[in-house]
């Protein structure tokens, strides 16, 4: 029996190693590519022979990348804030209050989660031009907020169902209005769920490419995924592989930090909401 346990253990340990390699190999590759000096980019080796940070300093010096990074951060953070606030109101009402139409709201949200964004980029493009939202931060914040609201509402409702509601009732028995009960008692209990959905919303907004290419045209609002794709680099003749790799590494750092710090929350959020943006 114990021999079988040992071989079992070795089998699953091997599995763990394979999974970790599977997950991280492409990331290791892009890091290694970003550290290759220009003359090594095409040498076909996995690792750089003489690592250098030239690609990083080049990409910072280029005007496209720093502004794209600023746009990405600003747009993703504002979208996250708005989506989580609106979703919190809605999820609280859906879980706690009795009113007709909540099933409709939940299924409508689910339908939007499955909605193909490409189906509305034409109308949005046309509307944004006449509303002067084309190539602005809000032109992207509005669709990001919309497409993450369903995920946020579902995740938050799942978390809210777990909250000990007797505390809320107790507060209301003590004379608190529903709104006071919400603000003083439930909001602090709800914070972990809000934080989790905030991470998921942020990842969506940080990741989006379709809206970013369709609804922006300049450094004013172009976010990192779009900027990297259309990056031309300093020389017209060489494709800027190294610089794209360096930019990719920089924008992957926030994701890795979040994953390391909040792994448990992200897993809980993804599986409780079961809705991916």
């Amino acid at each position, binding site marked *: 029996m114990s021999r079988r346990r040992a071989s079992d253990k070795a089998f699953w*340990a091997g*599995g*763990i190693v394979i*999974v*970790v390699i599977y*997950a*991280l190999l*492409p*990331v290791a*590759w892009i890091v290694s*590519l970003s550290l290759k000096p220009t003359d090594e980019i095409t040498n*076909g080796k*996995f690792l750089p022979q003489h690592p250098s940070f030239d690609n990083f300093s080049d990409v910072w010096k280029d005007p496209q990348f720093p502004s794209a990074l600023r746009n990405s951060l600003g747009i993703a953070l504002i979208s996250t804030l708005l989506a989580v606030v*609106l*979703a919190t109101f*809605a999820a609280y*009402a859906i879980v706690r209050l*009795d009113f007709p139409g909540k099933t409709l*709201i939940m299924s*409508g949200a*689910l339908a939007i989660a*499955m*909605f*193909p964004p*490409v*189906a*509305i*980029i*034409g*109308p949005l493009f*046309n509307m944004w031009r006449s509303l002067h939202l084309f190539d602005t931060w809000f032109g992207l914040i509005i669709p990001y907020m*919309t497409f993450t*609201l*369903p995920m946020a*509402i579902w995740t938050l409702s799942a978390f809210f169902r777990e909250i000990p509601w007797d505390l809320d009732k107790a507060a209301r028995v003590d004379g608190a209005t*529903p*709104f006071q009960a919400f603000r003083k008692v439930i909001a602090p209990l709800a914070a972990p769920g809000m934080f989790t959905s905030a991470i998921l919303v942020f*990842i969506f907004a940080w990741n989006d*490419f*379709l809206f970013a*290419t*369709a609804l922006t045209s300049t450094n004013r609002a172009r976010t*990192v*995924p779009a900027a*990297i*794709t259309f990056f031309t680099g300093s020389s017209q003749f060489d494709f800027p*592989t190294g610089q794209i790799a360096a930019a*990719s590494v920089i924008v*992957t750092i926030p994701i*890795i930090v979040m*994953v390391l710090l909040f*792994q*448990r929350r*992200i*897993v809980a959020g*993804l*599986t*409780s909401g*079961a*809705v991916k943006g």
Partner: protein
Amino acid sequence: MTATAKRTTGRARSERRLGWMLCAPAVTVMLLVTAYPIVYALYLSLQRYDLRFPDDHGFVGLDNYQAVLSNGVWWQDLINTLVITAASVIVELILGFALAFVMYRAFFGRAVVRSAILVPYGIITVVAAFAWRFAFDPTTGFVNGLTNSDRSWFTEQWSSYVVIISTEVWKTTPFMSLLLLAGFMLVPQDAVRAARVDGASAWQRLWKIIIPLMKPAILVAVLFRTLDAFRIFDTIYVQTRGAQNTESVSIIGYQTLISRLNLGLGSAVSVLIFACVLIIAFVFVKGFGANLAQQRGENP
């Protein structure tokens, strides 16, 4: 619930009003940014409306749909999209199961495994697409050096497919595996143990007990991933931009609307994509009985 709804006491009424008030902002935003534009797309799809010739603009009925549907490009792109979708979802389902079991059995380093697999989930799709493209590219890549070949992967359809599908699979299997793991956790362990006592082999336990009990979770995971894979855009745009006949329906929609500025024709493509998504969702819900509320362990 109906009893309390009928009692229109002051309290019930104010609760109802508060409920609507709290939902109103989210609902308004969702309606304005999805429902209204899809109706607008429906309207545009019936118009001749090309932004390069803004004066030549008017109602043309179903001409745009006829133009799209009688064009081989749409059908070819639809087939490409379906091939990529089916291939990625099938591979992801198998790999996702393997990953879920490793995560379940991980007696050490559970946090390490979960953090590691969340990296592909969280990474920007464009970045993932570039990483894979550079890896397979014959000038910058290491794949050819490793396998001692000089294949140019992006000059043929099948090999471009291989890279595109691999990228998709790498990026989205973690999501699939987490959903499968959550479903697996809901399987009552007593049933599995009882089958084991009765002498069922591991393989029999998997097929006769675990998978049937996980069916709702599997269906939901597959439905979400199918709809997600069907709108594939970023990976193809970065890796081939639709060359070598790898164009997807989202790419053709984007090219018609944004690159060629033909809002009429492009909107017809958009509406058709929307219709495809509705059909896929309908098939899953009606045909396979995917119950979206069940996965979450809720009472409907």
